[in-house]
C-alpha cells in the first residue's frame, strides 16, 4: 500500500507584528475621524439595533408632516383648496424642535462617557487639542441635526414640486428663495442647539443629568419668559404683542432667527414678536448663546491642550 500525504485541515500561523506602511493622516485626519466617530455613535452605526431605534425613528417622525403635506397637495391639486398648506417651509423649521428629545439624549452621549470613563487622556495622546475636540463634537451634532432638519424639507419641496398643478418648474420659480432660506435657517437652528446641548452636557459626567439639565433649561427658561411677558401686560406668548423678556426663552431664539431668515423680522405671534428691537435682540442672544457655549467648552477642555 502506498502512503499518501493528505492535505491538512488547518494550520496555525504566528504572523507576528507587521509594521503599518499605509496612508497616515495628520491633525486634519484626526479631527475628521473624531467627527466621523461621533456621528457614527450618535446614529447607532456599528452598534446594536437598540441604539439605532431612536435616531432613525425620530427622522421618520420628523418627515411625516412633509409626506402628509405632499399627499394633501396631490389630493387637492385640482380643487379650490389647491393653495392650502398644512405646513410651510418656515413652520417646518419649528417642527424640528421635536428633535429636542434626540438632542437631550445624543449630546450627553457624545461627551459624558469620555470624561466619565477617563478616555480623554487617550484621545489627547493623539494629534488633537481641546479645541479640536470641542469643534468636532459640536460639528458632529450640528451635522446630524442639519440632516434631520433638512431632509424632511427636501421631501416637502421635491414632493410638492411634482404634485402641484402648475408644474415643477413653476413651483421652483415661485419658491426659489426657499432654496437658500431653508438650509440657512436649518443650519442656524442646528448650530444653536448643538452648541448649547454639548455645553450643558459637558458640565457633568452623567448622561442622564446632562439630558435632564438641557430639557430643564428649555422648559424653565420658556416658562419664566412667558410669565415675565404676561406680567408685562402682553399676551402669554401665543398672542401678538410680546416683549423683550421673551429673549429669555431658550427655545424661542432659534425660531426667531428662522423668522429673520424667512420674513426679515420676528414673527409677531411669538414671545418677543412686536417688541421694539426684537430682531436685534434675537440675533444678539443667539450669538451670545453660541459663543458662550463654545467659549465654555474651550475652557472646559483647556487642560488637555
Amino acid at each position, binding site marked *: 500500500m502506498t502512503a499518501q500525504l493528505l492535505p491538512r485541515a488547518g494550520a496555525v500561523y504566528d504572523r507576528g507584528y507587521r*509594521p503599518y506602511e*499605509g496612508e*497616515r*493622516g495628520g*491633525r486634519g485626519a*484626526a479631527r475628521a475621524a473624531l467627527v*466621523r466617530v461621533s456621528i457614527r455613535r450618535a446614529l447607532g452605526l456599528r452598534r446594536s439595533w437598540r441604539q439605532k431605534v431612536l435616531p432613525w425613528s425620530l427622522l421618520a417622525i420628523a418627515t411625516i408632516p412633509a409626506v402628509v403635506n405632499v399627499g394633501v397637495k396631490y389630493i387637492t391639486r385640482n380643487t379650490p383648496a389647491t393653495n392650502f398648506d398644512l405646513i410651510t417651509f418656515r413652520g417646518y423649521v419649528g417642527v424640528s424642535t421635536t428633535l429636542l428629545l434626540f438632542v437631550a439624549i445624543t449630546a450627553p452621549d457624545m461627551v459624558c462617557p*469620555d470624561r466619565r470613563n477617563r478616555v480623554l487622556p487617550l484621545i489627547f*495622546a493623539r494629534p488633537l487639542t481641546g479645541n479640536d475636540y470641542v469643534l468636532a463634537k459640536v460639528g458632529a451634532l450640528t451635522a446630524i441635526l442639519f440632516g434631520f432638519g433638512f431632509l424632511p424639507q427636501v421631501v416637502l419641496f421635491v414632493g410638492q414640486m411634482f404634485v402641484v398643478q402648475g408644474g415643477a418648474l413653476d413651483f421652483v420659480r415661485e419658491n426659489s428663495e426657499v432654496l437658500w432660506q431653508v438650509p440657512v435657517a436649518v443650519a442656524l437652528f442646528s448650530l444653536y442647539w448643538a452648541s448649547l446641548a454639548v455645553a450643558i452636557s459637558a458640565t457633568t459626567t452623567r448622561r442622564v443629568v446632562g439630558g435632564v439639565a438641557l430639557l430643564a433649561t428649555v422648559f424653565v427658561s420658556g416658562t419664566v419668559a412667558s410669565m415675565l411677558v404676561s406680567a408685562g401686560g402682553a399676551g402669554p406668548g401665543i398672542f401678538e404683542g410680546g416683549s423683550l423678556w421673551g429673549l429669555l426663552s431658550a427655545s424661542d431664539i432659534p425660531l426667531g432667527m428662522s423668522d429673520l431668515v424667512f420674513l426679515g423680522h420676528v414673527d409677531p405671534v411669538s414671545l418677543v414678536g412686536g417688541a421694539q428691537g426684537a430682531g436685534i435682540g434675537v440675533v444678539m442672544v443667539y450669538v451670545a448663546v453660541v459663543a458662550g457655549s463654545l467659549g465654555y467648552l474651550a475652557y472646559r477642555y483647556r487642560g488637555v491642550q
Partner: protein
Amino acid sequence: MVDDLLRTKGLSLRYPSGTLALDELTVDVPRGSVGLVGANGAGKTTLLRLALGQLRPTAGTIEVVGRAVADDPIGVRAHIGFMPEHDCLPSDQTAADVVATLGELAGLPPRAARQRASEVLDLVGLDEARFRPIGGFSTGMRQRTKLAQAIVADPEVVLLDEPTAGLDPIGREEMLALVGRLADFGISALVATHLLDDVQRVCDQVVMIDGGKLRHAGATQALLHRTGALRVEVNDGAGRLADLLGVAGVAVTVVDDSTLDVRVDGDGGHVLDLVRDGADDLGLALHALTTRRTSLDELFLDQPQ
C-alpha cells in the same frame, strides 16, 4: 544616525500650585526599552505629559525621537503611543471598536484602523475576546487592550505609565513579556514605573529620577555592574577583615561573623588584591569570593536624599 528616543536639556516644570515637578533634567536616552523609574511623585508622569506635548515646560527643551516637542507639540503625538496608568476604556464598547476608533484618531483610514486593531489585539492575546464589551474584561485584559491601542498606529515610541499596575503575578508576567517584545517590533518603549524589578527584567536602559532630579541614566547592566558588590566568605574573622579594608578606604558591610560585602567601583581589581592580601595578613581562610550584583532597588535606595 538614529535619533535618540528622548533628549532633554535643562527641562523644568513648575505647576501653577508652585510644585516643582521637574528640576533642570538633562538626559539623552537612546532608542530601545527604557525604564523611567522613581518613587510616586518623582516626576515620571509629568515627563510623559511633556513628551506628549500636553504640558509646556517652564524652562528647557525636550525632544522625542528627534522632534522638538515645542516646535510641534500636537504633531509629535502622531509618532507616539501612550498607555496611561489609570483605567481609561469605555465599558460599553468592544475592544475592537475602541482600538479601531483610537487608530482612526491617530490618523489611520477607517478600514486600515479596523485591520490594525484586529492585528494588534491578536498580538496581545485578545483575538477571541475582541468583540466582547470591555465591561466584562479582567484587569489583565484591560491592560492588554490599553497596550493594543497604544501600538495600533505603529508608533515609533510608546510611553507606558505603570503597565503592570494592579496585575496579578500571571498577568504581570504576560504584560512584561509583551513589553519586552516591543523592541522586536521596532517600537521603542519608555516604561514609567516604581517597580524596579520590572525595569531590570525588560529594559536595557534606565533613567532614574527622584524629586524631579536625575539620579542615574545609562544601560541597565552597566549600572548594575558599576555598583556591584563583592561577597567575601572567610572563617570567623569577617569583622577584623572589615576593619583592615576600612583603613584602606574600602566600603564594607559585615553580614555575619564569616561574611562581608565589599563595595566595588570600576573594574574592582585593586579591591580584589586588598581582600586577598588582607585575608593573608590576618591568617584567614578565604572560602569564597563572588560578585554580587546590586539590584536597582538597592541602587535607588543608596542615593543621598
